[in-house]
């Protein structure tokens, strides 16, 4: 088996995972590892879940990262599940030989916090494993070991992945986005209150509407993976997407 440099990226949700995987495939020349292939890097074998969990949650699907690789680099994109990313990824790292990693990165939502605050929270959580973890949002540091955190949507504003996806959608699917926005905007404030929307649920519902039109019956992750949310046109036209692609390039290549 080819010996590759190993990189681990932690993300908060499945949509983030699909989004990064698509950038890596579309813009940075990575290939997705498929089930059944026999050249899975040894370190990633540690992520393979063994036995069902005994916590009584019999229907919970155990997590396995998305693995993508070039000839020289193999990257695992691990989903930690929203705010539990720090806890689950810390526990995972405690079970790994972290010295085998040549890159470690986090891509997280800013939500309603300052990006710097988000970056500090994560860098503090992972200092135990990576004392040199670099915590300036959007920047990558290090040579033999590279690290960095990208705070969505653009390392300076509040927001989430869907904030960025909306911008991509306006370039790739302007008509669908307009009609989806019109549909979402038709919900009254009273209805939205009754539906208990949280911040950024408007953007999420808009993306879900378009995704549902593009891939009826499929999830957002399938649409992110298969449609043109990330393409040459969006990378050229959406500065935030270009910046994220550049961050990943510096972290991995």
């Amino acid at each position, binding site marked *: 088996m080819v010996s590759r440099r190993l990189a681990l990226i932690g993300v908060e949700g499945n949509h983030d995972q699909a989004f990064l995987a698509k950038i890596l495939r579309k813009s940075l020349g990575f290939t997705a590892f498929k089930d059944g292939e026999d050249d899975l890097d040894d370190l990633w074998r*540690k*992520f*393979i*879940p*063994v*036995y*069902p*969990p*005994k*916590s009584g949650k019999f229907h919970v699907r*155990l*997590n396995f990262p998305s693995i993508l690789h070039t000839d020289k680099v193999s990257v695992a994109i691990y989903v930690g599940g929203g705010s539990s990313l720090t*806890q*689950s990824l810390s*526990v*995972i790292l*405690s*079970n790994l*030989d972290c010295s085998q990693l040549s890159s470690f990165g986090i891509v997280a939502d800013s939500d309603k916090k300052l990006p710097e605050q988000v970056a500090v929270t994560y860098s503090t959580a992972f200092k135990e494993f990576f004392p040199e973890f670099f915590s300036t949002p959007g920047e990558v540091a290090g040579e033999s070991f590279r690290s960095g955190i990208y705070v969505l949507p653009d390392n300076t504003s509040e927001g989430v992945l869907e904030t960025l996806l909306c911008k991509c959608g306006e370039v790739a699917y302007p008509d669908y986005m307009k009609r989806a926005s019109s549909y979402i905007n038709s919900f009254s404030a009273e209805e939205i209150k009754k539906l208990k929307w949280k911040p950024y649920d408007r953007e999420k519902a808009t993306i879900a509407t378009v995704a549902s039109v593009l891939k009826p019956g499929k999830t957002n992750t399938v649409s992110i993976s298969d449609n043109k949310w990330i393409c040459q046109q969006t990378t050229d036209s959406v500065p935030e997407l270009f910046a994220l692609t550049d961050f990943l390039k510096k972290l991995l290549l």
Partner: protein
Amino acid sequence: MPALESLFIEKFRGLQDLQLNELGRINLMVGTNNSGKTSVLEALSIYSDPLNLREWWETSNSRIQEPRATRSSVSDAIKWLFPHNHLDEMHDDSNLDVGCISLSSQGTFPLVGLAASYEQIEELRFSQNDTKAEERAALTSGIELSVKIISQLSNEKDHTKFIANPPDLEDTVSKDRLKIQIWDGERVRFPRSSAHNFLVETVTPVSHRLEDSQFRLLSEARYQNFKSEVIDLLNSVDSGIEDIEILADLSSASALTHFSIYIQHATLGLAPLDTFGDGIRRLLHIALKVVRVKGGVLLIDEIESTIHTEALQSSYYWLAKWCEEMDVQLFATTHSLEAVDALLDVTNSQDDLVLFRLEPSIGKTKVTRHDWSRLKILREELGQEVRW
């Protein structure tokens, strides 16, 4: 407070610079084959009674299941408890024929340090040939074993000095040291010193088959009114077991000298222990050892061995409960993830269970420590592999 809060094995067999910190009530060693799990138990076994040459001899033979006649010589067996690095020896002649062992610990354990060394020795011996009345010379070889301990009461805390400068003693055993020459082909004297004999008992994957020790252990349990608790444990494997007794074998001509352990069983009636499976016999052995080692340290090699996975949880529940009640600190090895999960199920606090994964690497035995909380998340929420 556990007897051992931390253990540092600087050198022992293949272990090198192994630091086991924040030990718990139950300490589980995992790792691939040849990672040193059993060596940790062996090191602890010697640490419990280091001035007793017999302890060195028995520990050095604990992995051998063949009859005594086929075993290697005492000196050879003991030599293999010491680290051997063939590559070092090839490049450094000074390492030939000598070896050092070094251990230290923190906690209430009576010892804080142990240093031992051996040196290969040779002697030209002359014997008289009866028929020809001539003298013949033969080269005899052996080892000189030197052991020094540092107890809690000792003022000397730096035991590493001993390795560089072994004390120049005649063959002797004293309150803090042992120095003895062991010659190949000669009957070995086993000088006894119990000055620092601490309660440590070992359960190997086969020790339950040695019935001689079972009589004594069962009698001890009976005298301590512990028999019903032992039966509780056996019920986790076979609910039909009602009682256990030592009985004379009346079919034997020498009935008064032949005894066997019998189990009173709901469906089988009174049946000899050796007609039951290994699971029952080993659990009985473990239970009796817990009684014997009250307030001390119990070492179990391959804790899952002979026990069906469905019985692991109930047996470990018993074991965890009685280790706590009897103030026993447990060190166990396992290859089984089911054993890890079962122990997680029956323990419930940070100090109850600690898992140590040993990974040999160049010049050092790496160790990954997972306390109960972390292990719980790794196994029960994330389903992660923790053995390698």
